[in-house]
């Protein structure tokens, strides 16, 4: 069974960067979301067992998505991929239950290593 995975980022370039960094042999079913609302919709529809989440997004930002998932005890594994690399942002993200924080520009090797560490591969 392929794993349902969602990439949530308002930037097309950024979504492409994440997509390309995913291991080619990883058996997944991929969904893309352009903002926080779409990300939550993907989770609700069972399309995001793993969620790659940007923080600065229109409509609903990544922090709000994390809060919502946290409040609803969602089982989604969230990996935040963000340009907001301030220590306070990282701390907040971790306290809201994200599994990992990866800084942009995304290093493909770091993403693969993270997936391996989380036992997702």
């Amino acid at each position, binding site marked *: 069974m392929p794993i349902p995975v969602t990439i949530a980022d308002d930037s097309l370039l950024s979504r492409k960067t994440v997509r390309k960094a995913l291991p080619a042999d990883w058996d997944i079913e991929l969904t893309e979301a352009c903002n926080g609302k779409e990300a939550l919709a993907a989770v609700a529809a069972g399309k995001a067992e793993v969620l790659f989440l940007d923080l600065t997004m229109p409509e609903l930002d990544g922090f709000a998505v994390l809060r919502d998932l946290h409040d609803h005890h969602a089982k989604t594994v969230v990996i935040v991929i963000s340009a907001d*690399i301030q220590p306070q942002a990282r701390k907040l993200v971790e306290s809201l239950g994200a599994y990992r924080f990866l800084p942009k520009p995304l290093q493909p090797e770091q993403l693969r290593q993270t997936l391996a560490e989380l036992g997702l591969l």
Partner: protein
Amino acid sequence: MNLQLTELQRDALQELMNISMGQAANALAQLIDAKISLSIPKISLVAAAEFQQIFSTDQYWFTRQSFLGSVKGEVLTLLARAGIETVGGLLHYALPLDERSEKELLLELANILAGACLRGFSTQLALPTKVSMPTLFQAAMRQADSFRWSSTLLLEVEFQLEGTAFDSRIVICLEPQSVELLLEKLNKLLED
């Protein structure tokens, strides 16, 4: 200069600026132990009259820095007059700020934010540049034509220091030839 950006180019520029801005905010956050909120970068093509609008405010101080290298242009930094004392306090300046320390603080802030922003941008695109030290200038006394940027590409980001009235805007102005080179690099990035 007759220039149009495709949606993809605009998206890519926005994302590159977003990352640069994150690095700049982090550079300042490390020094002041406060959180800086980031906005979505603004990419625009402007004519002289619109460019002049940037300066039609007395709410900000202005600094400028030129940069040279594979791309050339100028970085303008707008620093809010409101909340500058708070920022000075966070950076351990003696308060109240006197004229000299105020100037020093403004130049330091411009150097940190604009420097990191430009570095982030040029590194990601592999377009090395060297940026000069900032100088303060009186915006109100300048005419649009005293800048070379009669019609150009502007990359603009805004920082807001949480819990204070302070905000800062960074505007990167590129020379026409540099815009061409930038777009070439962007297209390559988008093709990959």
